[in-house]
């Protein structure tokens, strides 16, 4: 760090990302509370552990190979002009191998750890999206393999392709997805759908004629607080998607003059102030329409807020707040209708509506951004396609289907083939916590007996 301004910028950026990581932790707390609130009492402990343990497993694998993949894969490889992996140079992946000196305490590097951490929290989020859909019947071991797949492999490949200033989707398709409608949410929802098809519904979820039975959330307050915490963590998520301060010289693109700016991951300019408008307006649109369309159902109203933000996220760096508001509302309206239709038509038991809230809204967010931002530059650099409806729609398909649904379905099929995917029927019926709860009750009874003996 030569020069005070450079040092200040670097240390500010380091602290900025560090704070976003702390805030994003709340997303995971929220997901844990939310999932436990939705699951039945007999499955609480299993549900909690299933979501909790994805965090360490995705963390270590993201350290081993996930971060390397992000920097190695922007060309495909071999999709963009036949170019292969990017291994060397200023942005080369080999400096992020798990044994490289940058991947530890290194006085010459203040950014790698916090940038890695911010991406890692996105990884936890994407794995958590899948987790909720599968509750009460998936084996933990199977889910954790799926979590590593999406958290440390497939989502980070999609990020290299469409959420990297040098990604081939940005260059060739003009793909624009500033706050990850597609790269986090569509892939999460698509993966969940692929796994759900193989996994099947919870026992008793559908009547003989195919009508779904309502499995009401067991604890509305846990669900409420959980979703509010996810909203809160989402602020950190939005901040972490930005580069907080950068000079035109560092961007070294077509931006002229001397004005410093915040940018998106594509290094295109935006402001934290502007995205604050859009975050809150899209949240509001989602909440209002979610309330109306579900006739005041709390579960879908809160999910509507989340869905609103997710649908507007692809273009929330540039939208007008009123656009964000209407996009948010439209997203939950379509997702809610589609969720109910798919549930009845195909008997898909998505316990938390993640396929709808994250998958459908994430995909729609890509499509809407393609239309509304049609003609905007996707990058500050020359030679990139501009944002367009076709490019963003193809991008949404890649996220939801190619990197989401297909890998989810294939891995679930393999796990199912080995008998590792779904818990035995009897265990599902008595509950995954049956033994633990019996042991707890026996321990309480033992204490009660001991206390009575003292009277």
């Amino acid at each position, binding site marked *: 760090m030569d020069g005070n301004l450079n040092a200040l910028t670097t240390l500010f950026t380091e602290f900025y990302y560090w704070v976003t990581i702390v805030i994003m932790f709340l997303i995971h707390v929220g997901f844990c509370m939310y999932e436990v609130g939705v699951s039945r009492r007999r499955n609480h402990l299993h549900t909690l552990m299933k979501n909790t343990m994805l965090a360490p497993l995705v963390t270590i694998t993201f350290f081993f190979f996930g971060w390397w993949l992000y920097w190695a894969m922007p060309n495909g490889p071999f999709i963009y002009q036949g170019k292969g992996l990017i291994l060397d140079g200023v942005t080369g992946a080999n400096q992020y191998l*798990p044994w490289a000196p940058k991947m530890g305490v290194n*006085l010459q590097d203040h950014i790698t750890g916090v940038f890695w951490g911010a991406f890692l929290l996105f990884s936890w989020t994407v794995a958590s999206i899948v987790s909720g859909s599968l509750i009460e019947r998936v084996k933990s071991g199977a889910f954790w393999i799926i979590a590593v797949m999406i958290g440390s492999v497939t989502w980070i490949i999609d990020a290299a392709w469409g959420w990297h200033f040098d990604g081939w989707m940005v260059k060739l398709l003009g793909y624009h997805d500033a706050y990850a409608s597609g790269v986090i949410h569509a892939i999460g929802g698509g993966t969940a759908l692929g796994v759900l098809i193989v996994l099947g519904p919870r026992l008793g979820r559908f009547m003989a004629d195919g009508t779904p039975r309502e499995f009401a959330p067991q604890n509305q307050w846990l669900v409420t607080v959980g979703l509010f915490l996810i909203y809160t963590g989402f602020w950190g998520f939005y901040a972490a998607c930005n580069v907080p301060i950068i000079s035109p010289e560092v961007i070294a693109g077509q931006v002229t003059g001397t004005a410093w700016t915040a940018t998106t991951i594509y290094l295109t300019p935006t402001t934290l102030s502007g995205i604050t408008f859009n975050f809150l307006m899209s949240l509001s649109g989602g909440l209002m329409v979610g309330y109306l369309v579900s006739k005041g159902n709390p579960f879908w109203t809160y999910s509507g807020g989340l869905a609103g933000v997710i649908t507007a996220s692809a273009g929330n760096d540039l939208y007008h707040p009123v656009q964000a508001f209407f996009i948010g509302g439209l997203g939950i309206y379509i997702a809610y209708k589609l969720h109910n239709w798919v549930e009845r038509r195909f008997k898909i038991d998505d316990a938390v509506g993640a396929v709808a809230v994250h998958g459908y809204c994430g995909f729609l967010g890509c499509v809407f951004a393609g239309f509304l931002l049609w003609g905007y530059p996707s990058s500050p650099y020359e030679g990139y396609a501009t944002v367009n409806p076709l490019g963003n729609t193809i991008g949404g398909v890649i996220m939801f289907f190619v990197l989401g649904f297909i890998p989810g379905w294939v891995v679930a099929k393999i796990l199912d083939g080995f008998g590792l995917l779904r818990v035995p029927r009897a265990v599902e019926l008595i509950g995954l916590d049956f033994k633990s709860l019996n042991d707890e009750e026996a321990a309480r009874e033992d204490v009660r007996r001991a206390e009575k003996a003292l009277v």
Partner: protein
Amino acid sequence: MGSTWAVDLKDIGAVYPLLGWEVIMVLVAVAAWLLWHFAQIREEEADHADDVKRYGKPEAIKKALDEQHSVWS
């Protein structure tokens, strides 16, 4: 890393112990990760098999469902 901080920090890079042993450390960690999955899956399969053996009969399942209704709901 030497034994003093009386240095110009711009000349200092990585400072963790066992510099040069990073590949070995990572390989050990990867092995630990894979072993964890094997151990966890084996444990979970054994637990489920035990549950099925002890509570898998229809009467036991019905009794469990009734008990849950009165105690845990």
